[in-house]
């Protein structure tokens, strides 16, 4: 290692996935800047070698480039499951550690890779969590029971949506829930109004959605235009915890539930350290990015990079695959030790973070509020069943 610790960063920064990719990058950046201001990592300044991977087509090449040409010893990526699949393949073969911060597809870590660590929970836990949350928390609010509720599942048809959808499906099925409809579609769609019509016919009580931002916006707006009334709606992170989604819907965003991750949690549920970082994260984010408020994806990116820079690398002491791996496996931080509420403990088998879990939010007053689990909740579930359109301003 020279005078700087060079980390490979692999994210979709252009193309259709760019929006959240740039969110994550801001999180990475902030974690690095703060670390560097605090004196760096292992006595060196940290530095990124960033590659733009608009889709998984470029992932293999760019990961190869990071490793063989830029000689990075560590790659941080990628947020989208497809990209993660392809890029981690390369890292594994070249014996370079790859930290996946936000891609959820279960199979990413079921390939037996030795150098791949994942911070976030897998899709089955996300979708399953959303379903469980629906069963446990939402049904009582809307006065239904697993046996008599009608649920519809709608998800985009790439890795992310289908994996989450399957997770939800499984839990609902086990609980004996009547899944009245299960549909997937391409997130590049320009019209979802027929789906809305279908729901108007089927009259589901709850919608469980897994969408990216544009199709998420489109769907909820078209639901409003067609006057689709459901008792509750639960999203899964791609659209439903994103600020752009709220901007697009105005007051009608209120009441929407989301399963995912949040940086609008109760910091009193965090460890002291984490709570301090939490505050710093929010303040610095607003200060450094033109008053912009951080998003969930920025939070996850920040958390992953922060953990790597603050805990794993110092633990490793050097930038070598072996050392980083050992340090990662040795890391043991309790739940509540990160700004998103998680802890960090990688499963020695799958190398998934066993202390990550979805949190559950609701839009209230056009802000996202965590409503579960209790430790980090800052608000209660409100206004279920959803009041009719136009009446949601007061939620």
């Amino acid at each position: 290692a020279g005078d700087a610790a060079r980390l490979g960063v692999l994210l979709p920064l252009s193309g259709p996935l760019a929006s959240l990719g740039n969110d994550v990058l801001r999180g990475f950046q902030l974690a690095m800047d703060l670390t560097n201001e605090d004196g760096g990592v292992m006595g060196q300044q940290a530095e990124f070698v960033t590659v733009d991977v608009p889709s998984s087509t470029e992932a293999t090449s760019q990961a190869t480039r990071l490793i063989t040409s830029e000689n990075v010893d560590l790659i941080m990526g990628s947020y989208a499951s497809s990209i993660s699949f392809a890029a981690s393949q390369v890292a594994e073969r070249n014996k370079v550690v790859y930290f996946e911060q936000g891609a959820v597809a279960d199979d990413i870590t079921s390939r037996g890779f030795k150098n791949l660590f994942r911070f976030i929970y897998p899709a089955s836990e996300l979708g399953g969590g959303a379903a469980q949350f629906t069963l446990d928390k939402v049904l009582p609010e809307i006065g239904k029971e697993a046996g008599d509720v009608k649920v519809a599942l709608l998800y985009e048809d790439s890795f992310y949506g289908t994996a989450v959808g399957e997770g939800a499906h499984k839990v609902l099925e086990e609980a004996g829930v009547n899944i009245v409809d299960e549909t997937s579609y391409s997130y590049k769609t320009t019209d979802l109004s027929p789906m809305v019509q279908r729901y108007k016919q089927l009259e589901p009580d709850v919608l469980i959605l897994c969408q990216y931002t544009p199709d998420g916006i489109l769907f909820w707006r078209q639901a409003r235009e067609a006057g689709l009334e459901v008792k509750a709606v639960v999203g899964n992170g791609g659209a439903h915890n994103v600020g752009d989604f709220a901007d697009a819907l105005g007051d009608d965003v209120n009441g929407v539930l989301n399963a995912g991750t949040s940086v609008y949690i109760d910091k009193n549920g965090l460890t002291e350290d984490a709570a301090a970082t939490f505050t710093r994260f929010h303040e610095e984010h607003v200060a450094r990015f033109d008053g912009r408020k951080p998003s969930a994806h920025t939070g996850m990116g920040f958390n992953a990079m922060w953990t790597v820079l603050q805990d794993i690398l110092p633990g490793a002491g050097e930038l070598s695959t072996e050392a980083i791996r050992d340090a990662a496996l040795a890391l043991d931080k309790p739940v509540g030790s990160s700004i998103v509420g998680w802890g960090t403990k990688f499963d020695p088998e799958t190398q998934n973070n066993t202390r990550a879990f979805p949190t559950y939010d609701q839009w209230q007053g056009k802000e996202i509020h965590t409503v579960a689990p209790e430790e980090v909740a800052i608000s209660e579930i409100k206004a279920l069943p959803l009041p009719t359109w136009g009446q949601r301003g007061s939620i």
Partner: protein
Amino acid sequence: MQLVFQLLVSGVLLGGVYALAALGLNLIFGVAKIVNFAHGEFLMLGMYAGFGLMTLTGINPYWGSPLIAVAFFVLGMAFYWCVMRFTIYSTELTQVFTTLGLSIALQNLALVLFSADYRTIQTMPEGMSSLQVMGFHLSTDRVIAFFFALAIFGGVMFFLRRTYTGRAIEAVSQDLTAARLMGINTRKIFLITFGLGIGITGVAGAVLVPSFYAFPSVGTFFVLIAFVVVILGGLGSVTGTMIGGLSLGLIESYIGYFSPDLKEATHFILLILLLAVRPQGMLGVKGAEKETLK
């Protein structure tokens, strides 16, 4: 029954939007024989224009559309003058890659300038986003966009059929040299055509943004649809574009009801099948599909 009609109505509205989004492509396609792969990006710029106008000045894109039309007319002329002028005599593949290069450049320029965020506007006050007519729910913004489409189609048709410039455009589309010999200033015609094509596309983008969203690669969501509409309807046929748009809107509506994951495939398969039986498209002039470009 209500459902069948509701799907019909929303399909027609959507179809109008598609037709409008495709019209500019067909104009340029028809006259200059150029497949503009950057079409989606001009649409995207139109969307940003609509968004910017609304957020900066508070004027909604509907009232602002004349302004956007003028700005994009000029942009279209610049597009011709600075870029496409050099490819008029080249092979179609050269043109494809010139416009593709432009598409990549514009998409990413937007990313650099406007960031990757999804931008939306609300033109209607809360609660006015939908109209209820005889029990049908209609998106107010789509209805407005649809009327824009009708007006613009009517205007373009009048312009092409009834004005000398319009006819000159058609002449240029069929034989450039002969058109010159008829005293037609072909450069001017190309400028007008590109101005018109991009101008319409800009307005289309601006009136679409209220019911969609602007972000740098939104053009890629629409460009293939626009291609399908144009070819389905027929090269160089304005009416065909409208019919192509409406058919696609209706397909989306009905197929989308039963199986949204198949609707895009349906577009493409329909396109291939139609071309197999009627290669010139529904209203295209027979033989146009055989036009060997070079």
